[in-house]
């Protein structure tokens, strides 16, 4: 037993003292060097292929400088704010975002165009704008979020907001590639599913941390399965129904898969009971079979996955082209800017900037590059789970683990889909795919993780137990005790 009296007293809140972050500085310098080298490689290759004069200038120096400047600004903001948060997350996300920028500079700029204030912007410029916003979101969340009370206290409000967003998409959503995903507001369109995944994790963390003791108690035994009281299984069923609802109404398989996987993982983390996971998997298989029988979209995806070459120029076209791209890339890749041969004058994969950036990177950076990118996601997961492991209470631990898993599982789903390891479902590759909603939502995730990783963060409030009184003074006789 150790008692360190007073030494662990938390410093008075509100005082802000800058705190150096040497590890982050070092890693960011490394990131800048790597990105400049990548940009030089891209520029030289593009000039060589276009037959222009040789030079070693980066591909688009201006954009790269702006991007690196934003990273440095976020770094300085964290130093000035004096938060003792994780120092590896920001450089890792910075590297992923930088790779995204290089990829978008490299793809045909006409894939996405937007006119704003009389000027036309191409793919890379728009992506750069979103990346800057995402970095700003990360920095603001990491500096400003000093208490998680607003997250833990209003979990049902958050759940309601999530369901409202889902309904909005259902009522006013536009169809993209057979899935009801986007909402159009003025000139901007957004994908609410990206935000819903963050809200879902907040709700689940709140719900599971409150009912964890009840979920762990067992009241029934069904053969080798130990089951909790039946009413606590209801949220599981509700979650399953919601995932199926997303498949049925929105035809968004990726989001449904992501939500259910993260839900099961969080339940397991909270209860450490394999029986929950088993029940969840049984439900998942049952739901998949039902969806396969009833919905053409699901059947198509599975058939393409089983044999994309059966209809290589039709339904299986994108997946086949993706496999060819990985094949062309080989071990060290064709080099940035040298891949993507056009098929009949057009891009082989139309959705290369949103759904197939992993295939594009597989072609240009090869197996080595793709493994490195998976490694970067692993670093994000490791840091996030470390935040969860050192959290002070269950809510924070579950929140950090859930946020981490949202990013990790999503990266796995789309990377595996590109590689034909699992049926392709259209989710974005976090921090690399083109798209504002995805970048901003993932920015919120990383910002919250950074805030949670701070050791000097406000201690969690004592939990309030539903229907019970607040702590009260003892009413015993004076001088009691034996």
């Amino acid at each position, binding site marked *: *037993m*150790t*008692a*360190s*009296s*007073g030494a*662990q007293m*938390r410093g008075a809140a509100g005082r802000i003292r800058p705190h150096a972050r040497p*590890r982050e500085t070092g*890693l960011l310098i*490394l990131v800048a*060097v*790597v990105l400049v*080298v*990548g940009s030089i*490689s891209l520029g*030289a290759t593009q000039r*060589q292929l276009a037959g222009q004069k*040789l030079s070693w200038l980066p591909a688009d120096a201006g954009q790269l400088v702006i991007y690196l400047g934003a990273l440095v600004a976020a770094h300085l903001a964290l130093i000035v704010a004096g938060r003792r948060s994780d*120092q590896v997350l920001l*450089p890792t996300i910075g*590297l992923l975002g930088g790779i995204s920028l290089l990829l978008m500079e490299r793809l045909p700029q006409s894939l996405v165009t937007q006119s704003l204030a009389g000027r036309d912007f191409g793919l890379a410029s728009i992506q750069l704008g979103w990346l800057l916003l995402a970095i700003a979101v990360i920095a603001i969340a990491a500096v400003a979020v000093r208490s998680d009370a607003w997250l833990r206290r209003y979990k049902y409000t958050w759940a309601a907001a999530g369901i409202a967003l889902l309904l909005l998409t259902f009522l006013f959503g536009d169809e993209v590639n057979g899935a009801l995903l986007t909402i159009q507001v003025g000139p901007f369109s957004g994908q609410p599913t990206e935000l819903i995944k963050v809200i879902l994790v907040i709700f689940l963390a709140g719900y599971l*941390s409150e009912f*964890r*003791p009840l979920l*762990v*108690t067992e009241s029934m035994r069904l053969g080798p399965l130990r089951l909790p009281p039946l009413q606590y299984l209801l949220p599981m069923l509700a979650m399953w129904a919601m995932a199926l609802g997303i498949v049925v109404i929105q035809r968004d398989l990726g989001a449904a898969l992501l939500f259910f996987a993260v839900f099961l993982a969080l339940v397991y983390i909270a209860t450490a009971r394999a029986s929950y996971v088993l029940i969840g998997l049984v439900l998942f298989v049952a739901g998949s079979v039902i969806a396969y029988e009833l919905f053409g979209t699901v059947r198509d995806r599975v058939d393409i996955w089983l044999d994309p070459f059966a209809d290589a120029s039709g339904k299986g076209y994108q997946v086949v082209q993706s496999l060819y791209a990985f094949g062309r890339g080989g071990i*060290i*890749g064709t*080099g*940035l800017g040298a891949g993507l041969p056009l098929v009949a004058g057009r891009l082989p994969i139309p959705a290369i900037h949103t759904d197939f950036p992993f295939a594009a990177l597989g072609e240009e*950076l*090869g197996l*080595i*590059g793709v493994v*490195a990118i998976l490694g*970067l996601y692993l*670093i994000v997961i*490791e840091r996030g789970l470390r935040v969860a*492991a*050192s*959290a*002070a*209470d*269950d*809510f924070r*631990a579950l929140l950090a683990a859930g946020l981490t898993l949202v990013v990790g599982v999503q990266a796995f789903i789309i990377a595996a889909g590109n590689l034909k390891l699992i049926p392709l479902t259209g989710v974005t590759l976090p921090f690399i795919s083109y798209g504002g909603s995805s970048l901003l939502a993932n920015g919120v995730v990383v910002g919250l993780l950074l805030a949670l990783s701070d*050791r000097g963060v406000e*201690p969690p409030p004592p*939990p309030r*137990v539903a229907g*019970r*009184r607040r*702590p009260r003074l*003892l009413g*015993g006789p004076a*001088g*009691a*005790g*034996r």
Partner: protein
Amino acid sequence: MDPYVVAIWIVRIAFLGGLYLFMFGVARLLLRDLRAAARDPKGALARLVVVGSDVSEPPRGTVFGLDAVATIGRDVNNSIVVEDDFASTEHAVLTFRGRAWYVEDLASTNGTFVNGQRIDALNAIAYGDELQVGRVRFRFERARR
């Protein structure tokens, strides 16, 4: 061979190498953290932080590391000694049973409270819960790793 082509090839490989250099850098930090953690053997399974104690011992801010069994009470033989008129000699015991933590009231006169509710006999306790013994309030926390 065109020297320009060779140079482009070298830059290309340098970029891939850079990605791995970054990962190596992160791995080195991780290793340093692990070594530091190994040098600092805090075997505690959880922590108990005193969050409210106006007139009694231990004072506010004291942190106790917990073993699998930790007894609380006024007697000096307890793992956590609470000097408070409203605490019993052997007041409560915290136990870690493989998966979850439990708190048990040892038939104390004034009772043991979890989140303001008086507990009878054995009760599960979760990280973040508030435990009250006599006039001393503790917060039950995860061990810092």
